[in-house]
């Protein structure tokens, strides 16, 4: 992975010193709460329900085992012994004090990590495909381009106070978007053109929130060396013309929609014309320097189907079932990418305790060249596992409770921290996830249902990405009580045209009704599906009507309950 140069290290160290000084001045009364707020947010520090929450950046999801051990140390030393992996390749700690945070940032800097711009109205962590560099379906490794963008966006002087937060994702797969790129403010789909040159199809204006929108294409086949200058042009247009009068209309999606995607693209092009081939243009030498950090590890020549693996798969049903869900193909023969599930009973989705972090780091060292990836579905990927070692890895992961064979299935729930932690939330989300995981813990049933994405957000900020869940659950506040709205049909496809926002099926339900509603939806699906037809495909074929009528025939929504 990319290692900091002395300059990279110095910038991060100086950032720690700067924030330390800001906290001192705030304590002394020289900085007001309002003045500190944007500064602490741009260092990842929120004030939350119980205590400040620190969000640490894991750029494009890539972690070294030594970094994960440092995160475990931070969890033990300054937090309550655990962390939460978010949907945007960050890790969050929930129990720190503001005064401790400079120390924590210093500890992060020692392992080349930071919390720069993980919140605030600025360019956030650049996210990408957790299978980057190993996926058989990618034509270019997106990581060097992500790092190029990370450095460009870090402490950018012009774009620290945008109208609203700004999220960038990069994907390089032709057939599957594992970064939800079309749901970002700015997305790059990297590919090779007919001449073999790396180009990006650029989309803008996607986002969740109360006005969910799939991004629109604004530029096709942008040569990679223009990534930074084109982004600068686009951000300048947004910085100048994005709305600042209304918090809920200040994301770039509103600007793109009000201008129309083609007029927005024209304005960006007009700005870009001044920057194109200027000094901000990326160079081959810089890309090559960064790409060195992502050179392939020393793979061995291994068999694709080792005899022992075949025997283990034949002899052990549990292993075989895990293999079908957790093991993905690899561009190098004899290796596999393995997803370890952070969706297990008794834990909030994405939560990991410090001991498990250490154990994960050990697994990475033992089986995957010391690297891990954090996925936007809140799981962990070991991307370079020899296929002959899969059984041993499964055995070890099972002991740790990380081998649940539910990747991509109903209980692989994506979930925000919700009302248990988050000051913004209208409703709790973790207990809903846990109720669903408890009700549907029969692996035979889950495997029979097949692929279904279920996403839960505790409020319309949509950190749980419920808009793009095949089944989405949104916590809403109704007269001081928590209720849950259900959406169906959300999907992240390979590109914007194949990405859709779910449709609300009707009035919301009380917390204790939700798992029953899900059960009814699944029953209807099982009754209507063709053999091997995925949930989302059945839904596309029959529409939401049969689901809706069954659900509301079985359950009385809150509006009626309220009048009882």
């Amino acid at each position: 992975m990319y290692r900091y140069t002395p300059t990279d290290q110095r910038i991060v160290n100086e950032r720690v010193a700067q924030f330390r000084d800001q906290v001192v001045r705030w304590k002394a009364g020289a900085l007001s709460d309002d003045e500190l707020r944007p500064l602490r947010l741009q260092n990842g520090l929120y004030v939350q329900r119980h205590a400040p929450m620190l969000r640490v950046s894991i750029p494009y999801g890539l972690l070294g085992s030594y970094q994960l051990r440092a995160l475990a140390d931070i969890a033990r030393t300054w937090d309550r012994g655990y962390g939460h992996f978010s949907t945007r390749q960050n890790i969050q700690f929930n129990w720190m004090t503001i005064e401790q945070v400079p120390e924590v940032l210093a500890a992060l800097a020692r392992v080349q990590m930071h919390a720069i711009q993980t919140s605030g109205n600025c360019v956030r962590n650049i996210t990408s495909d957790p299978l980057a560099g190993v996926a058989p379906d990618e034509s270019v490794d997106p990581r060097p381009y992500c790092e190029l963008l990370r450095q460009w966006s870090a402490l950018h002087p012009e774009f620290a106070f945008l109208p609203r937060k700004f999220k960038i994702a990069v994907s390089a797969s032709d057939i599957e978007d594992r970064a939800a790129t079309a749901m970002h403010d700015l997305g790059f789909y990297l590919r090779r053109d007919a001449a073999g040159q790396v180009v990006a199809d650029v989309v803008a204006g996607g986002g969740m929130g109360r006005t969910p929108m799939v991004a629109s294409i604004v530029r096709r086949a942008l040569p990679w060396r223009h990534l930074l200058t084109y982004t600068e042009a686009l951000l300048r247009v947004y910085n100048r013309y994005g709305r600042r009068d209304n918090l809920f209309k200040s994301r770039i999606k509103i600007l793109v929609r009000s201008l129309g995607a083609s007029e927005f693209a024209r304005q960006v092009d007009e700005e870009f014309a001044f920057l194109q081939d200027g000094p901000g243009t990326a160079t081959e030498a810089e890309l090559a320097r960064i790409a060195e950090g992502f050179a392939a590890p020393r793979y061995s020549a291994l068999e694709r189907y080792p005899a022992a693996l075949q025997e283990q798969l034949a002899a052990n049903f549990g292993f075989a079932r895990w293999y079908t869900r957790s093991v993905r193909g690899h561009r190098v023969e004899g290796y596999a990418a393995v997803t370890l599930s952070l969706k297990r009973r008794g834990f909030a989705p994405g939560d990991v305790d410090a001991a498990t972090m250490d154990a994960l780091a050990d697994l990475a060292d033992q089986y995957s060249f010391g690297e891990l990836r954090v996925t936007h579905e809140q799981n962990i990927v070991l991307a370079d596992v020899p296929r002959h070692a899969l059984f041993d890895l499964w055995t070890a992961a099972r002991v740790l409770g990380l081998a649940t064979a539910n990747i991509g299935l109903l209980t692989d729930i994506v979930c925000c921290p919700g009302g248990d932690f988050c000051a913004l939330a209208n409703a709790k989300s973790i207990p809903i996830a846990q109720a669903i995981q408890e009700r549907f813990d029969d692996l035979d049933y889950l495997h029979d249902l097949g692929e279904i994405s279920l996403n839960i957000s505790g409020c319309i900020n949509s950190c749980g990405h419920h808009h793009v869940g095949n089944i989405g659950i949104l916590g809403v506040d109704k007269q001081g009580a928590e209720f849950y709205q259900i959406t169906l049909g959300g999907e992240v496809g390979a590109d914007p045209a194949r990405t859709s926002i779910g449709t609300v099926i009707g009035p919301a339900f009380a917390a204790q009704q939700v798992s029953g509603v899900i059960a009814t939806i699944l029953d209807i699906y099982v009754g209507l599906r063709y053999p091997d037809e995925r949930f989302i495909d059945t839904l596309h074929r029959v529409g939401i009507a049969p689901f809706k009528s069954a659900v509301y025939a079985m359950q009385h929504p809150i509006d009626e309950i309220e009048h009882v």
Partner: protein
Amino acid sequence: MSESANLLRLVDGAPRVVAENWRIIESAALWDGSGGAILPLELVVAQTERVRASGRAGIWLSPTDDPACTVEFFPWIALIGVQFPKFTDGRGYSSAVLLRTRYGWRGELRALGDILPDQLFALRRVGFDSFALRADQDPVTALAAFFPFSEAYQGSVNPPFPLFRRASTCT
């Protein structure tokens, strides 16, 4: 806006606390026609000849003013101010970049309004060379916070080239 007592100006690249005799005129009605005033763009556009006849003059831009509109006045104005109604309103940073890199303003470029120590580094990088600190701010604290970083990744106005185009920085 009123006359600023807390003014920093870059002198050979280093910030200095300086005395100041510009007056900032908030709206046309408040201007008595005398020189040495920083005037709203709208006023300068509407009363160009009167402003020009007043002697030494500057223009200030609100976040929604288009910096391109100042270009015709470049030959005779002495200063452009960019107003930040709140320090979290980042439009002025783009105004500064455009004035410096697109329209070629070489004269004094002043950050006005809600100007706080922790934004000075970025303000300098986008081309401001004078900084009218908010009245309650301590200029000594501001000087101490002026250079929190010894390097920057991106090219902007200052420095114009990104780190990867500057010499021997990656070793």
